[in-house]
């Protein structure tokens, strides 16, 4: 059943209805609501796990399981789940498991280069509105096709990181050697093809590892392979429909779209698996300058994130090329059901007194958190007035007239900002400069136009604000 159409009642009917609270919820109905929102799992209900409830459990499992299977790669803290999705478009419900990004090393790299790449991947981190954005996996490629070399590279990589690994070789004897080293860490095997599927399936079963099925530009073959492998007993599959950076880009997007629609809209269980994209193909044709390969790899990765990729294999480690990709991933995988705005009102930073600065911003969550983190890092003692702009950023709210002199005046009045300070100086966002005159007319406060970007707040407070407030204090007291 499509995730969006499932109601808590459908689920409630199949629960034990004992209201025993063992799951941590006050009653079975609220547990049902949590299950429908995918905020709880069936295993949290101990009663349901009893033998007599087996039929209900199985029905619920079917009702709640995602049409795109969730596949676990790796073990321990940095284990990654790929797939496990319920909808095609994020607004239909939400996406659950952000596209995992793997960086490659090859078994023909010099040891120093390999170790450095693995370390940089493991340590990659960007802080974005209070969240930490990471890279997720290492893909070890056997470019040598030599089992012993591959064994060496896998071993070196595994020693250097606890990130989950993808072992890449189409040669089963090479793969075998890699699995002998890290099989118990549940690496992802790349890949089973028309030619090697039986050997790869045997390895996947023996090591209990997930397996990529590769059939570039041939969805029919892909479906034949998964149908066969499911019969063979391999259940944790990942689909590789092929990635093309130049000619074939249209095929790539088309294949990803078809597969996701077949899985979710048509409930095709043979195709209900996570999708693997390989932006690394952007390196298959060397440009005059490798910067262009990185440029192309980056935007290819972004397009695949938008078009349903659950896992990406990339080569670049340049921050400028990876940053747009990890931020786009965060954006697309943000839960659209969560509010986009924060409560209007006055927030205090540090220990402000009656001569402290008063600034305002909008109640768009991203704007607010960005400004708040800049005020914090400026170590300022200040008041920040959050004006209701209907959850829209300063620039758009000014353009769309959601943020006007009226709304600012109303906020000053409603939140009694005048009682907090003795001065009447209001610092406004640089992007709201065009309404500064109207604000002065309506509120009687004098406006200081702050920086265009809130990263300039610290500097602004140290210079312009300091100058203005000392004039007032000098003359007023």
């Amino acid at each position, binding site marked *: 059943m499509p995730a969006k159409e499932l109601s808590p009642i459908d689920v409630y009917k199949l629960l034990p209805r004992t209201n025993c609270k063992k799951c941590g919820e006050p009653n079975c109905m609220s547990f049902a609501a949590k299950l429908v929102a995918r905020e709880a799992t069936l295993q949290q209900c101990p009663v349901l796990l009893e033998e007599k409830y087996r039929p209900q459990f199985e029905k619920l499992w079917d009702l709640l399981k995602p049409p795109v299977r969730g596949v676990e790669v790796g073990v321990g803290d940095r284990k990654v789940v790929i797939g496990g999705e319920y909808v095609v*478009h994020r607004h239909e419900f939400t996406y659950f498991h952000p596209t995992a990004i793997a960086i490659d090393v*090859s078994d*023909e790299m010099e040891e120093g*280069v390999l170790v450095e790449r693995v370390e940089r991947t493991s340590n990659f981190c960007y802080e974005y509105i209070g969240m930490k954005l990471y890279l997720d996996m290492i893909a070890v490629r056997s*470019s040598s*096709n030599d089992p012993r*070399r591959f064994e*060496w590279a896998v071993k070196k990589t595994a020693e250097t990181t606890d990130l989950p690994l993808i072992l890449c070789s*189409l040669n089963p004897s090479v793969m075998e*050697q890699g699995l*002998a*080293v890290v099989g118990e860490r549940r690496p992802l095997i*790349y890949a089973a093809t*028309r030619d090697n599927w039986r050997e790869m399936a*045997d*390895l996947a079963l023996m090591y209990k590892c997930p397996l990529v099925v590769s059939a570039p530009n041939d*969805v029919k073959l892909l479906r034949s*392979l998964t149908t*066969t492998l499911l*019969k063979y007993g391999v259940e944790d599959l990942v689909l590789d429909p092929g*990635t*093309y*950076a*130049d*000619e074939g*880009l*249209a*095929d790539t*997007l*088309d294949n990803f779209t*078809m597969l996701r629609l077949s899985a979710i809209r048509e409930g095709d269980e043979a195709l209900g698996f996570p999708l693997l994209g390989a932006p*690394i193909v952007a*390196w298959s044709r060397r440009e*005059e300058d490798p910067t*262009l390969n990185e*440029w*192309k790899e980056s*935007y290819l990765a972004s*397009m695949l994130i*938008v*078009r349903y990729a659950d896992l990406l294999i990339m*080569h670049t*480690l*340049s921050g*400028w090329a990876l*940053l*747009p*990709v990890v*931020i786009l991933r*965060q*954006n*697309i995988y943000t839960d659209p059901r969560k509010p986009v705005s924060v409560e209007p009102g006055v927030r205090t930073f540090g220990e402000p007194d009656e001569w402290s600065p008063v600034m305002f911003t909008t109640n*768009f969550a991203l704007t607010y958190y960005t400004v708040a983190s800049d005020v914090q890092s400026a170590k300022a003692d200040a008041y920040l007035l959050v004006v209701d702009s209907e959850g829209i*950023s300063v*620039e*758009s709210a000014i*353009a*769309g*007239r959601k943020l006007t002199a009226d709304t600012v005046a109303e906020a000053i009045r409603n939140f009694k900002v005048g009682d907090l300070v003795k001065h009447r100086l209001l610092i406004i966002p640089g992007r709201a400069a065009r309404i500064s005159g109207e604000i002065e007319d309506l509120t009687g406060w004098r406006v200081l136009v702050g920086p*265009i970007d809130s990263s300039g707040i610290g500097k602004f407070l140290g210079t312009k604000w300091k100058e203005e407030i000392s004039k007032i204090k000098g003359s007023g007291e």
Partner: protein
Amino acid sequence: MNSLKEEKKDRKPVIRLTTELLEMLAKASEIELEDIELDFDELELQLLPGRVRVIPRMAPPEEKPAKLIEVEYAPPKLEYTGRIVEVKLGATRAEGGTRSRSIVIGGETAPAFYLFHTSTPHKPVIAFDVFDTPKVPLAKAVKMHVQEVRDDPAAWARLCIEKFGAEMVNLHLISIDPLIDDTSPEDALKTVEAVLDAVDVPITVGGCGDPVKDLKVFEKIAEATEGERILFNSVTLDMDIEKTAKIINKYGHTVIAFTSMDVNHARELNRKLYEFLPREQIVMDTTTGALGYGLDYAFTVMERARLAALRGDPELQHPLSSGTTNAWAAREAWMTMDPQWEPKLLRGPLWEVTTGLTLLLAGVDYFMMMHPAAVQTLKAVIDELMGGRKEMEPVDWVTLKI
């Protein structure tokens, strides 16, 4: 999958990211190449004594298939009853204007690039931003390309078309803002005429965001340029909608209906416009948030609007416009950051590319953009996608020497 093969005939050149693009990025020669991996022809490996385990081959039990089970695949069947209207931008002499060609956008009957379902009727178009005053702050990565023409909109427009490959010019009359220069409608018209003389492509004329002043200026320009089929940017819910729509209609122009990230507001504005203006003269802009700063909402509002239109909602069946330039509002697009994220001269335009491509996949038909390298990249991707499926041989990246 016969329908897929049909697409093969119209082959387009591969995406060519030339050194020209690199020059666009590197004009100030500040690019430091980081993280470039070297090829090593000779590798000396010290193989550690490995545990070579002999893996017993499992004989597959009888029920396991011994050979590939061949099954069929049919692409998903989709039913869309709606169709996006076609909007013609610009007019040739034969059509009553002075442009060398006009451009049609819209006409979709499926979500963007669902090639298995149907082809894309018209190529999405890219317009270059030109401002009528040098007072508009520009990021350094952008400024360095237009420095010499910042106080001459006509020269700026010519540069965008002749050198940067834009298909349209997107003129912003920022100086008419009463809070900036309060330029008169007469003077604004002179700027528009100068741009129309300088380039022969269709143009867009944008206001300053003041609902009263914009209308005054639009009225003057619309009348004087009757028949040119200019795209006016924009009409909003708080303008005199009736008057604006009547002017656009009377003088044969087109307009962008701008709302801020709300599908219902977009419907409401369109509904009000229909009373006075044919649907074929309306383009829709539901606001573009920058990557990292609202792109998720922008993407979802556009995607929802487009899907609703295709499923038959008659009030949302318009081509989509995106102010992709808003990407530069993200601090990561222009700020100097820790060395590991530099150079910003690459990061900035890539920010615009990522914002643009994301929205291309939501269904945008008309892009307003700013950086030459970003424009070149979007054009190359659009050309490749318009070329359809190519059914190429697999690329072996597993054994690739990088």
